């Protein structure tokens, strides 16, 4: 008998025996997962050239263990550091990090900004649900002010990170933000990231109806995606809006895409110089 999962056109990219998946009903991870496999399919990248490095948190469970690729599911906050080693050790590999907002901007913030600065050819997909989902809905560095979470029962006092801006400021050469509502944008950005050389950062605003939606009074996943649609402002439109007008909105689009030499290629060039100098 052929199951539904096996008959899906992207099923060939899934690890045998890894189903069923472990995401909550209505989680945005499924959309991110399918978007990625579509992008891989469209870009025509063979799976044996892809390495997925997963952090700790719900986002890490997108590739691990479900994608049929080499997968390194590492310690909390560190996937970009591990991925840097993988890429430099074998630059032929397409190294993709799946991380969350807590994983890459709180505990792993240092690795994120340094990877952007180095322009190491690692592609980072950050699933930003504005909360710590896996551990029980604690406040994150991306949680907007005033939101009541399990650990901010009287409202969050801190200002949230704008992750895309952070990566641009750190020297990121490709930065884009979309939401799970904007699937076409997500797939296109993933495809672009997969087919360019330098460090690439894609922030996907994603719904966590269980822990975040509940806090803002939207428990229905589809409603949350409609909320994303309503709150999203294209980059072009955002340029004409004030900071105040943009408060609470999600600016979507491609923020930056510039050509800067990628680190592992610079290493390859330096190897030639070093071996000449030693002769």
């Amino acid at each position, binding site marked *: 008998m052929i199951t539904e999962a096996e008959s899906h056109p992207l099923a060939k990219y899934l690890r045998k025996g890894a189903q069923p998946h472990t995401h909550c009903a209505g989680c945005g991870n499924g959309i991110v997962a399918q978007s990625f496999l579509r992008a891989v399919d469209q870009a025509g990248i063979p*799976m*044996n*050239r892809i390495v997925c490095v997963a952090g700790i948190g719900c986002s890490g469970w997108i590739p691990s263990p479900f994608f049929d690729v080499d997968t390194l599911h590492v310690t909390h906050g560190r996937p970009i550091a591990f*991925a840097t*080693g*993988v890429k430099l050790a074998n630059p032929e590999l397409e190294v993709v990090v799946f991380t969350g907002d807590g994983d890459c901007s709180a505990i792993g913030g240092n690795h994120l900004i*340094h990877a952007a600065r180095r322009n190491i050819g690692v592609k980072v997909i950050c699933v930003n649900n504005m909360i710590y989902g896996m551990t029980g809905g604690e406040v994150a560095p991306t949680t907007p002010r005033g939101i009541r979470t399990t650990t901010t029962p009287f409202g969050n006092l801190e200002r949230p990170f704008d992750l895309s801006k952070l990566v641009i400021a750190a020297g990121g050469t490709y930065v884009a933000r979309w939401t799970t509502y904007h699937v076409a944008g997500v797939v296109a950005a993933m495809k672009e990231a997969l087919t360019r050389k330098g460090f690439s950062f894609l922030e996907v605003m994603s719904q966590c109806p269980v822990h975040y939606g509940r806090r803002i009074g939207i428990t229905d996943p589809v409603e949350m995606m409609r909320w994303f649609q309503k709150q999203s402002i294209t980059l072009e439109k955002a340029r004409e809006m004030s900071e105040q007008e943009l408060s609470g909105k999600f600016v979507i689009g491609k923020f930056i895409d510039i050509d800067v030499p990628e680190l592992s290629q610079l290493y390859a060039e330096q190897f030639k110089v070093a071996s000449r100098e*030693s002769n």
Partner: protein
Amino acid sequence: MQGNEACALGAVAAGCRFFAFYPITPAGEIAEKMSQLLPKARGVYIQMEDEIAAIGSVIGASWAGLKAMTATSGPGFSLMQENIGYAVMTETPCVIVDVQRAGPSTGIVSAPMQGDVVQARHGSHGEYAIIALAPSSAQDMLSMTIRAFNLSEQYRTPVIVLADETVAHMREEVVIPEEESLRIVSRKIPSSQEEAARAFLSPSVAPMPVFGRGFSAHVTGSSHDEYGKREASAPEAIDKIVRTISEKIESHTAEISETEEVLLDDARVALVAYGSCVRTAEYVVKRAREKGIHVGLLRLKGLWPFPSRAVSEALASIRQVIVLENNLGQLLPEIERAAPAGTETTFLPPETIATLHRPDYVLQHVVEAANK
């Protein structure tokens, strides 16, 4: 040649082609030398943003197929502990050189201490076994670094070279072995998809399905089965992991953790030492023998897994044991446990911790022990 420089030479000779580092004293010269040597060998030297990233990138590089190493000292070694546990859990070969300095905390950056001995064994959370070697000379820094790579590749485990400030900064004659004479061990790679599938938890060490060869390896620090499949809730799974990754090392203690006996055959008094303390001990044995005292030395070249049986056998006919450590007795409980019944064990740190043992001071204790 300096001990740290010898360490770098040993690493490259062993096949190390990836070295990640975060600046720290007294390990700096290892990085300087690696940054000179590696690019010429088409190897990667990278300075990461902290020690956590250094060991993380080392583990990543190892899975991508390179022999990889990092070097640090106490504060950085503390930061690395979580990822060292990850390397243990995922059976990742790599080498960590910890040039011990005086602590706790920032302590004194260029004073010798053997303060990280227990941390090397138990520093990461959870239950596991690990390999740690203790060099006593610049020559050891070279040969033990090679050996550390060989053991890590053979057993698919992180190996710690537990150096200290004295052996790292000491300059002395080092014989660089001919390349052909070196025994170099490299990890086994699966020869088929079937072999690659069972990539973990073999008591005889499974071949490593390194990335980029179509093995679809699944590597996770979560509890898993021998296929790498996450098994995050069954106690039986973690029970198997804990026992297997410990047993694959502990069952080879005799081969891994070498000891060296110096003039123990007719000795009544034995010094037991490792690391830089061995140097004082060797000198004291010579001086005491000149005085006609029957004293010998048991040198521990590998600390973990602790060579209990070898220590027990070496001390079989000894009446007085003097343990030299530059700390408050971190390995002492292991030595006391291994010492045969009837031997009396005395612990002798230097008069001032974080200095070397004064030979006269040790000799005085040897004389007293001989007269007991």
